[in-house]
């Protein structure tokens, strides 16, 4: 459940509002549930509210693990 997408913060606006984008599509959303939002941050967006920050390092680490598992499968 729970359609949510990763979006990047373009602009932090007053009152816990931010302009976020995904591939050239931008939208005004609420960041009231997240602290310390900065331009460039990636957020998980759900029904107009950001729910979490995406950790770029962990994301990279996950991908690395995936590639590693895939390489093992590829070899298999």
């Amino acid at each position, binding site marked *: *459940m729970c*359609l949510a*997408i990763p979006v990047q913060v373009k602009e932090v606006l007053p009152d816990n509002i931010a302009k976020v984008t995904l*591939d*050239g*599509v*931008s*939208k005004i959303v609420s960041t009231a549930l997240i602290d310390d939002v900065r331009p460039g941050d990636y957020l998980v967006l759900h*029904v107009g509210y950001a729910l979490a920050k995406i950790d770029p390092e962990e994301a990279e680490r996950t991908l690395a693990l995936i590639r590693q598992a895939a390489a093992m499968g590829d070899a298999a």
Partner: protein
Amino acid sequence: MKAYRRKLDVANGRVDLSHGAGGRAMGQLIEGIFHKAFDNDWLRAGNDQSAFSVPGGRMVMTTDGYVVSPLFFPGGNIGTLAVHGTINDIAMAGAVPLYLSASFIIEEGFPFAYLERIAQSMGAASREAGVPIITGDTKVVERGKADGVFISTAGVGMVPDGLDLRSDAARPGDAVIISGSIGDHGVAVMSKRENLEFDTDIVSDSAALHGLVADMVAAGGAHIRLMRDPTRGGIAATLNEIASQSRVGFRIDEDKIPLKPEVAAACEFLGLDPLNVANEGKLVAVVAPEGADAVLATMRAHPLGSEAALVGHVVADDNCFVQMTTSCGGRIVDWLSGEQLPRIC
């Protein structure tokens, strides 16, 4: 002693009930906005119908009603749609569109300025396409009984000798070709809907496809089984319609379907599948395998088909499933159930 007529105040005026009542005010509205914008002798003749000569042969007729909201959107408006959409339905038979009619149902209070803008766009679109609007009708309904303006256009065209495209003609092995990227129109319109508002550079693909079709027919007429413009319901609805009418299945390849990144992104925002999103300047052609290359090459040489792609094939399938190979495996592409709604989950 001819009656003086005050000029239509196009900048500030509004349509009121007298503009639909069959009197002088209606005549003035029609002349001042529609005749001026559509600019042809058929309309100026002021008959209840317009006449034209045909050489004899097979003709096609089609109609569509246009109720798009908002009326104006990036890349077009309800008027351009009303011209392009009906031309395209004629072109999908491989026919040469000849003439259009236009029926306007206008809500009381609608600003003349909007109506003129819409009419001007229609006039321009019809001139560019070479398909004149030769007859029309204007009705005005009370405020709250319409949504600004509705336009129903009808059109007639002439089918080239020997061509007979029909929705039941797809055969296993046929190639499925899409003329370009999908979902642009639907996303452009939704980007301006109240409550959905998002920013994107995507513009509607609204365009008249009869030029592209003429090239295709010239290049591979005998091999083209059928064509469809994937409007409401998108590619998914179109392929399912063809499948059930031709009693076949499809196997298409997700990776091959042209899709703009912004359209994909907007669909992620809204929880929509781009395959269900409307197009207004795209076509799907089912082509016999031996003609596929030639037709595809011809399409790519035309500005409206430069991104054309062969996306799959017709298969034998009593269940008429439209199957799609995804990056990871396979799935069905089904009709959308119910209205196209943004989803939360």
